């Protein structure tokens, strides 16, 4: 079943002529993990934000559908309700808003009737334990004064609470030590399956030892220049991106 379908997607930074995505084609089904690898500046993060609806980018042509629904017509909140989730590379801080309050509001945004508090507390506690997050984090302000590792864990915690259909992980491995990376990977692997597909965006092969991709794509200069199976990631790790860059 083809769930996320991206066809000939072109996008630029709003109020600029600089095209960053120059014709992306990609199909991601539930149960699949697609790694998108590429050097800095190739458009990896732009792709993730364009899929989520960042107001700073403008789609100039192409289409994106999820289960047949036109995603590009929707705001970020509606995309979230459709089942898309972006694990931010640089999550934003909202001082004065506790993690628990934020999570409960987000969970309720995805439901018709508000979640009962005891049920919410249990879900949050279970997710925190899985990710080895200190439960005290729930009363801290959202990403305010968090270390890089804490921010990444909180992103995965949100993923665990919101149970998306398609998760996009934007350089989730950057800034994580090996222990934290394993914990984060455990959280993602726990949810990938028949109900969730994932796009893992990364510069390095390292995270792919823990979140094993079914497909690997190489993104260079706003285009996917090569696609293959897991073995492609290892090849890139050994040879680098240079040979692909020559193709552009």
């Amino acid at each position, binding site marked *: 079943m083809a769930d996320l379908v991206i066809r000939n997607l072109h996008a630029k930074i709003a109020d600029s002529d600089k095209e960053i995505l120059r014709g992306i084609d990609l199909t991601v089904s539930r149960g699949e993990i697609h790694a998108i690898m590429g050097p800095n500046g190739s458009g990896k993060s732009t792709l993730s934000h364009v899929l*989520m609806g960042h107001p700073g980018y403008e789609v100039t042509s192409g289409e994106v559908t999820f289960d047949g629904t036109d995603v590009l017509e929707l705001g970020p909140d509606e995309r*979230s309700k459709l089942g898309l*989730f972006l694990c931010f590379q640089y999550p*934003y801080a*909202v*001082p004065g808003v506790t993690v628990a309050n*934020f999570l409960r*509001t987000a969970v309720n945004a995805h439901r018709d009737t*508000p979640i009962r508090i005891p049920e919410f507390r249990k879900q949050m506690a279970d997710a925190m334990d899985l990710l080895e997050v200190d439960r005290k984090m729930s009363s801290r302000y959202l990403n305010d004064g968090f270390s890089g590792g804490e921010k990444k864990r909180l992103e995965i915690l949100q993923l665990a609470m*919101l149970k998306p259909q398609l998760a996009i992980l934007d350089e989730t491995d950057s800034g994580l030590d090996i222990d934290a990376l394993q914990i984060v990977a455990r959280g993602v692997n726990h949810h990938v399956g028949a109900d969730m597909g994932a796009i893992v965006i990364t510069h390095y092969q390292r995270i792919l030892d823990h979140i094993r991709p079914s497909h690997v794509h190489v993104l260079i200069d706003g285009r996917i220049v090569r696609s293959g199976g897991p073995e492609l990631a290892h090849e890139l790790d050994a040879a680098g991106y240079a040979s692909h860059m020559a193709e552009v």
Partner: protein
Amino acid sequence: MSALENDAAAIAGIGDEYRYGFHDEEKPVIKVDRGLNEGIIRQISAHKNEPQWMLDFRLKSYEIFLKKPMPHWGADLSGIDFDNIFYYLKPAEETARTWDDVPEDIKNTFERLGIPEAERKFLAGVGAQYESEVVYHNLQKDLEDLGVLFLDTDQALHLHPELFREHWATVIPANDNKFSALNSAVWSGGSFIYVPKGVKIELPLQAYFRINAQNMGQFERTLIIVDEGAYVHYVEGCTAPTYSSDSLHSAVVEIIVRKGGRCRYTTIQNWSNNVYNLVTKRAIAEEDATMEWVDGNLGSKVTMKYPAVILKGARSHGEVLSIAFAGDGQHQDAGAKITHMAADTSSVITSKSISKNGGRASYRGLLRVNKGAHRARSKVVCDALILDEHSQSDTFPYINIGENDVDIGHEATVSKIGEEQLYYLMSRGLNEAEASAMIVAGFVEPITKELPLEYAVELNRLILLQMEGSVG
């Protein structure tokens, strides 16, 4: 934890209509003519059966009011028409002691404001001001037994004449400013609280104030005396119905905190958008005493309010925490005044303002350290959040330091809601209004965390209501 998301559902469909904009049919027992003259003042005083000294005080204050110029250094007050205001209206003959005695239509208004419910929860005593008189008063028996007085100011004048006269207008004299003079001339109602030595009241004392009659001036007068080592937290919430012609609210609040005592005074005001809200609030803190003002200003057309603390005794401490929300056509000119008069005194001013849809929020603060106030310490933090390019925020900090060995800090920030912060919250399913309200609620959290729970919930709900329709 706030209940933003529950409230979002609860208020869906209300739109821009002012939430507490219902009003009952007026049934006044006595209503004086519009406008003000000596005859009306005599009429008010006679109707209240006041002693001669109070009539004299009123008449003298009226003279001062006539002579004082309008303040022109702050907000635009040119829309006030003193001749078109009712200065006194008494809705019911007697002050009721129990809920059953309260007239039905007045009760309906309170029911809609949720007072009995709130009382059941944790009110220690309720004084609810409806128009000019307190119609409902209830003080828990155990507080009475401790010697705590909590009654309306008119009653206090009759029942505790000596205590009353000893403290009356000692913190804010009639000639302090034009509006304190006006209040002194026509005051009616308000709360009178006396907390005896060493008595600490754990639960907050609360009063609800409402303006119900068109063109009705509300001039309540509150006097709080916290004796040595005593503590009280007084909470006052205001909601007013919407009317098309302008209303004037001009209160005076005087507080005396004796040696080692502590008083916290919390107000959340949500006047309808035609009210001029011009309030003089001042406290005197004696040795080792603490005075805290927590002040929330939403609604009104113009608010001018600068809660003041005079740190008279050594080691006394003053705090002013304020939040102002200025929307379309509103000017919130609010701040604080602190005067350090003695050694080792300290103060903290935290001011948060939000402006949107062309609203204007100004912080105006005066910090004075007098000669002899050695080692005084003060910290002022002003944060402004501006929600769109039509809105405005200004800061007018006045600092006047008469000693060298002091520690004074002033920080001010102005920020806007970031597009990317909104995007982040929206990517988790919150719509734009919910996401904006959440950012704003976080911004004011240093204030809401100091409020009793029901007020924190109400403030967040009001903010969410203000945000609806302001984005998108």
